């Protein structure tokens, strides 16, 4: 969105010649693209284009057969998902993950990275520092829940809220992890229009505050309105990328979606 204002080569995520095959099928086929800092980059493509595979490769859940992934200039190829997250790349999942036996507030508090209280020894050696960081995180969680206008859900069991609310909680929790770049996998799939609008405005607000987004979305209206630039994926490789209008008018994109010859 504020693409022009930033130096052109400030990529927070860079995917270079990434490859992954399952059996004989090349799910990701020499994919190359970059996500510039400060953008909301959309990743679209027909079903089976390899979007989710690409997300799994970037976030470390799959190991690529070839190519590299760079986050913030660091090569994270082949790292464990938690290590990729430590470098500032946080992802959400297509189907919201239900945290059984947790309230929304608790589920939120899993978000912050490297909490002192996550060290078993520190719970006993320096309980004071654990308490301080916990209070700060709790305050952050409640502030973010308020910003997302879902603070009334804080004490609800995380499994009892609606699918759309779950998506909001996921986004809110991801923000607690303070991501440099946030990968959203279909943020509005199965979400009612009112909540989708809310999600859109939240993403836009967070972007204005400095978070970079890469999002997969099937809802064309949603993605075209929100994202710029847009990367089009087809059969595992990057077909084209550009502004929403440019992509919309591209014949190859129309062919890919309508299944015409190419």
């Amino acid at each position, binding site marked *: 969105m504020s693409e022009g204002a930033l130096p052109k080569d400030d990529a927070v995520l860079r995917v270079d010649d990434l490859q992954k095959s399952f059996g004989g099928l090349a799910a990701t086929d020499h994919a190359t693209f970059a996500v510039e800092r400060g953008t909301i980059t959309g990743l679209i493509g027909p079903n089976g284009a390899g979007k989710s595979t690409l997300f799994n490769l970037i976030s470390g859940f799959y190991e690529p057969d070839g190519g590299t992934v760079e986050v913030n200039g660091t090569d994270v190829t082949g790292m464990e998902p938690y290590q990729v997250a430590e470098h500032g790349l946080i992802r959400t999942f297509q189907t919201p993950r239900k945290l059984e036996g947790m309230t929304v507030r*608790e589920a939120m*508090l899993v978000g912050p990275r490297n909490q002192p*209280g996550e060290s*078993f020894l520190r719970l006993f050696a320096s309980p004071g520092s654990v308490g301080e*960081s*916990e209070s700060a995180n709790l305050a952050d969680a*409640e502030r973010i829940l308020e910003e997302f206008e879902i603070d009334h859900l804080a*004490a609800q*069991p995380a499994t009892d809220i609606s699918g759309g609310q779950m998506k909001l909680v996921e986004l809110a929790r991801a923000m607690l992890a303070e991501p440099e770049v946030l990968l959203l996998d279909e943020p509005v799939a199965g979400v009612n229009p009112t909540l989708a609008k809310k999600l859109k405005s939240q993403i836009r607000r967070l972007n204005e505050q400095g978070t970079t987004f890469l999002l997969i979305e099937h809802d064309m209206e949603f993605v075209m309105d929100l994202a710029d630039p847009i990367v089009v994926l087809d059969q595992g490789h990057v077909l084209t990328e550009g502004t929403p209008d440019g992509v919309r008018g591209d014949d190859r994109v129309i062919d890919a979606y309508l299944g015409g010859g190419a």
Partner: protein
Amino acid sequence: MSALTDPKGAIAELTRPEGWVLGVSVAFLLFLLAALLTGALGPTYFLFLVGLAGMYALLSFGLNAQWGFTGLINFSVAAFFGIGAYGSALMTASGSPIAGGFNPLVGLAVALVVALALALLIGIPTLRLRADYLAIASLGLAEVMRLIVLNERWLTNGSAGVRGIPGFFKGWPVLSTFPEAMPGLRLEIVPGSPIFLEASFWQALLNVLLVLAFAGGTYLVLRRAHRSPWGRVLRTIRSDEDLARALGKNTYSFKMQSFVLGSLIMALAGVFYTHLNLYVGPGDLDPITTFYAWVAVILGGSGSNRGALFGGVVIVTIREGTRFLNDVALPIDPAPLRLLLIGVVIVAVMRYRPQGILPPQRELIWPSAVDGGGAPETPDSGVRERKGGGGDE
């Protein structure tokens, strides 16, 4: 629907099982007291039972730290229990085929170190994999340990077991001679049924104090550890490990910590058992111990330390209570009846209260952060017990 009206109902719903447990416990204690006073239950034997209850509580705590906190499926409770029992027995017993004769504290340390090593050995290859692999490997480990103890006579005396184990307080000042130093007492509270308190009673009392220290300390450690960011990550792993990984948690390390912690607690139960029973044999590694621990945790409520404690006591009650059925003419032997009874309990719990009798209720948030006014309107308990509600938009 509103969050204001629901918590009250939740608390009312929650206190029912708690009140029920409390009521039954009090009734049970009164029953035991009556049995004690009338001489139907020997005080020394009673203390032995309390010791056993503490031991089972420890085993349940250990399994709860693995399964209840993190969802790790460990079928080798008996193996870690056996490591603790044999580890300390072999170091301290006069009849030990190896070292022997060491101070029980040395036995304790050795038992814990061996249990730690074994937990790492089994955890390193399996904890990076899906949950099923730990289950399979631990099943194998339990059997391997049992066979080693049975067959490696140079190390364990084989089927003869290890004898000549001293009490835990051997070599301690005051406490080592405490049972003999105490005068024998004769109490007659209910006329006509006197109670004798002799050296064996004071010895049993020491054992109870020991297990109270072990179990109490373990409980405090687990309570603090669970209600913390650490415990929260474990609960996240239990529910959805991929989510924890995506949020930057090194789940392998967390699972390992939880597994090692639980295994050490199980070994601690074994150490206590050695100095309670003063004899260990290969039969102590039978899978039934694993089974009992699982029943206790599921019955009490996975993830709840109080539940594990409750489950442990219920197990001992069923296990030892059925012994009295020997005196009653029954068409079948009490031993299979005991297993049948436990089976019935499990089926009933699964059917009517799958979350266990005392499921965890507290949010896993560091207490001082909550008490500090972070979330005053929220009830401290009962949040998870509620059904339905909530889905307003």
